[in-house]
Structure formats: structure tokens, C-alpha cells
């Protein structure tokens, strides 16, 4: 524990906006996360994922992108063991998550940080207590150390001054950043970010992007970043997966994606309305749905 704290103490708390720090300790390249042919549906009637295969090497920052409702959050939920895959394997550090015992799942989650899409801040606690929560629950740090640690995390997201506020007094983007500070409070080895950029202004967005990259490299984290922000992703991530119709439809490192001629990737990168990605949730043709169509 103390070693990891030293590490973060060394880390500068105000990320520099220029250039991306390249991985100093990019890990040994063995996969931290492996999904092979994973299928999942919340109900039997509707499959959300049908055969997703992807892998994230240790120490890398990987983006998962795809249209709204394509199942990105669902993938993260499988990774933290909130739901079990209907078929296929979800492996973390070589261990199948469905076969983990209670204790193993506990220690997996202990090493995991998850930024929820909607923040999930504890509404009955202040910002400070929210960030302190995982530290209090899992360590016996003396109060002064804990205090400094929490303020440091808040400082990293620019919200040290908001420590005394309640979540109800925060703006959407501030809440996002507090949730981010809480997610990284214990310097997890594996971090899952569900839309960390949602609701951030361009300046905070770029700072948070740099922070995610820096954390990943300085602490040797492995990170999965779910986002719609393709431009920011291209700046900071190592590798990108595109999900559509319950499958991985394209993937590659930043260079490959930039130069890709894949219609899906092109549509996504350029934000074109027409292409393989559907904007609409599956439905009957419009003419059938409108009452006028039946006349």
C-alpha cells in the first residue's frame, strides 16, 4: 500500500496538457483482460452481446467505442462480475470470472476501479467522504494521512476546493470528476472508465484525458475507456475496439484506426449520419409505426 502511495505522491498532480506521456512501464504484454466469444442478454428475449472477443494487455489503455445502447456499459458490468456471461469466457489476469469464489471475486474487485456512467456518488456523504470511502473501507490509514491522500486525489481532478460540498450541490461535470477521484482513490490495478468525458468542457476534458493516461502509465494500471469522444481517444489511448450489433466490428491501434478505410470506422471517426451504424433502436419501419401508415 505505502509503496503505491509513494508512487502517487511523486506524480505531479496537475497534468501537463502537452503531448501524451508514453508508457514507461507498459507491462509485459500478457493480457490482463480477455473476453472470448462472450454472449449476454439481460432478458432471454434480447441478446445484447453475441460473441464479443477482445483482449487488453497489462499496462495498456484501451478504448471501447460504439453506438449508444450497443452494450459498452454491459461489457464493463461483466468485467466487474455484476452479471455473468451467458456463454463464452470473461477472464481477468487469466482467471475466469464466472468461476471465481466469493473471496477471489472480492480480491478482484479490491484491485478494480470502476467509474460509473452516472457517477453513483453517495448522496448522503460530502465530496470528501465519497473519495475517502474506499480508503476507509479497505485500509487503516491514520486520519491525517487519509485526509492528505483524499485532497490529493481531489486536487488531481481540480476539485480540492469542493471537498465540503454534497453531491447534490455539484454540476454534472463536477460530479463526474469527483466520481473519477473516488475511482482512483486506491490506485487500482485495473480501471474501467464509463464515459469519463460526459458533460465536461473542452478544458476539463483534455485535463481528465491526460490524467487518465498519466495514471495508467505512472501507476502501471490497465485501463478500459468507454467513450464516444473519438478525437480525445485517438489522442490518449493505445488501442481501440468498435462494438456494434453485439460484436467487435473493428479494432486496431491509433494509427490503424486513423487510416482505416473500414466504413464503420470512417463513419465513427467522421461522425457521419449514414453508414453501418444505426442511430435508431431496433423498430418496425416508420411507416408501420405511424398511424397514418395504416390508413
Amino acid at each position, binding site marked *: 500500500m505505502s509503496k503505491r502511495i509513494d508512487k502517487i505522491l511523486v506524480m505531479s498532480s496537475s497534468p501537463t496538457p502537452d503531448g501524451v506521456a508514453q508508457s514507461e512501464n507498459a507491462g509485459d504484454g500478457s493480457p490482463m483482460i480477455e473476453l472470448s466469444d462472450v454472449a449476454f442478454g439481460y432478458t432471454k428475449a434480447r441478446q445484447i452481446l453475441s460473441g464479443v472477443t477482445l483482449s487488453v494487455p497489462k499496462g495498456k489503455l484501451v478504448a471501447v467505442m460504439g453506438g449508444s445502447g450497443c452494450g459498452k456499459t454491459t461489457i464493463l458490468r461483466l468485467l*466487474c462480475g*455484476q452479471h455473468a456471461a451467458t456463454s463464452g469466457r470473461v477472464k481477468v489476469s487469466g482467471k475466469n470470472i464466472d468461476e471465481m469464489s466469493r473471496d477471489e471475486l*472480492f*480480491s478482484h*474487485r*479490491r484491485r*478494480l476501479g*470502476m467509474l*460509473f456512467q*452516472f457517477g*453513483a*456518488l*453517495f*448522496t*448522503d456523504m460530502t465530496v470528501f467522504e465519497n473519495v475517502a*470511502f*474506499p480508503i476507509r*473501507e*479497505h485500509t487503516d490509514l491514520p486520519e491525517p494521512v487519509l485526509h492528505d491522500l483524499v485532497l490529493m486525489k481531489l486536487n488531481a481532478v481540480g476539485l480540492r476546493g469542493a471537498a465540503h460540498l454534497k453531491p447534490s450541490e455539484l454540476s454534472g461535470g463536477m460530479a463526474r470528476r469527483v466520481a473519477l477521484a473516488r475511482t482512483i482513490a486506491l490506485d487500482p490495478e485495473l480501471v474501467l472508465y464509463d464515459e469519463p468525458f460526459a458533460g465536461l468542457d473542452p478544458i476539463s476534458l483534455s485535463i481528465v484525458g491526460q490524467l487518465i493516461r498519466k495514471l495508467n502509465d505512472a501507476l502501471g494500471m490497465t485501463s478500459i475507456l468507454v467513450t464516444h469522444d473519438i478525437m480525445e481517444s485517438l489522442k490518449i489511448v493505445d488501442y481501440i475496439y468498435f462494438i456494434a450489433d453485439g460484436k467487435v466490428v473493428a479494432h486496431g491501434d491509433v494509427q490503424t484506426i486513423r487510416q482505416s478505410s473500414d466504413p464503420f470506422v470512417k463513419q465513427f471517426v467522421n461522425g457521419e449520419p449514414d453508414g453501418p451504424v444505426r442511430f435508431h433502436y431496433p423498430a418496425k419501419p416508420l411507416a408501420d409505426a405511424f398511424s397514418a401508415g395504416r390508413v
Partner: protein
Amino acid sequence: MSAILGWFAGIGERTRGAIARLGFASRFFVAVVKASGSTFTRPRLLIRELYHAGVLSLVIVLMSGLFVGMVLALQGYETLVRFGATEAMGVLVALSLVRELGPVVAGLLFASRAGSAITAEIGLMKTTEQLAAMEVMAVNPIARVVAPRFWAGVISLPFLAALFSTLGIYGGYLVAVKLIGIDGGAFWGQMQAAVDWRYDVMNGVIKSVVFAFAVSLIAVLEGYDATPTAEGVSAATTRTVVTSALAILAIDFVLTVFMFRGSVNG
């Protein structure tokens, strides 16, 4: 014919549902008890909930107790005066409160004041993924959120019931002695002579403890099991109040049957 069959099937379905629910409640109860260690080793969690469930319910419970006692005395006088037994007023007020009204009415008030609040709070924490967030942080939400609220309810209600009875007796005294003019010595003296500590008071305490377990379990269960939407939480809150009320009255009947001796001061 098929309508009758359907009717029976409906009853069967509902009975099965009710039994399944009871089974779920008992498993949940076991889970809560198993996860209760930290509630008592980290008193800060418990104290916060004791304040919310217990202290914040004080005003309504004390006020209601006072009024119920005063009404008891007024109504009791009407009856007692016909038999020339108005000096038994103290006994009437005290026994009604200690054995019956204290635990039952305090339980009903507690369910609607604190029970509904507990359900709504836990339900909203579920809706906003706070419980899921805890789970993912390797913190058991049953230990961290449910157990402290459960035990706070279990501890608070017996005290609230006792305070309800105390204020009720005082209200009865105000009306009987100060307003109507019954002899104060007779009021207190008869009460002391007729109310048995072990039989009357302890039975009342037992009732309030049983109600406390029932209401607290219903409140945390409904919150934890709520459908994670706004309607889901509102339905769960309503269910807490309705189920608690029915549970209190049904359990009260059963307990009273077992405690019934059929003799006076036997």
C-alpha cells in the same frame, strides 16, 4: 367452470407468491444478521441511523402518545362512571397503553415515519447505482447500508413504544386528575397495585421488540428489493407501510392469544 378453476388458480398463485416472499425475507434476514458485525464494531454507522430512525421519530411518537392517553381517559371515564369505578381510571389507561396501544400504535407510527424513509433511501441508493458501486468497490452493501438501518430500527422502536406509553399515561393523568378531577392518589395507587411488572410490562416490551424486528426487516427488504426506478421506489415505500401495518396487527393478535391468561392478576 373454468372461471372457478381460474379463481382457485389465482388463490394458489398468490399463496405461492406470499410463501416465496416469506422465504426470501427469511434468507434476507439471515444475510443481514450475518453481515451485522461491522454495525457494532463501527458505532458511527449505527449512531447516524439511530438518529434518523429513532430521534427524528420522537416528536410524532411523543405527541401521539400524549393525545392517545388523553382520549383514553375521556372515553374511559364515560364507561367507568356508569359503574362507579372511576378510581380504576389509572389502571385502565396504563394497561391499555402498556399492553396494547403503546407497542401497536408506536409500531404503526414508526413504520410510516421511519420505515418508509428507510425504504425510500435504500431504494434510491439502488436506483442511482450507489449499491452497485459499493459492491464493485468490494464493500458489501448489506453490511454497510442495510444492517445499520435494520439494527437502528430494532433498537429504536422498543424505546419509542415505552416513551409512547409513558406520555400516554401522563396524558391520561392530565385529563383524569387535572381536568375531570379524579383523585390523584387513587389514579396512581390503583395503577401501581394492578399493573404487574412481569406480566403486563414485559409482555408489552416483548410485543414492541417483535414489531421492531418485523417493521425493520420489511423496511430494509422492500428498499433493497425495490425496482430501481422512481415508480419502483414509490411502490416499495407504500408496500413498507401497508405490509408493516398488517404484520403488526396480525402478529399482535397471535402474541396476545399466547399471552392471554383469562384471569385477573392470577
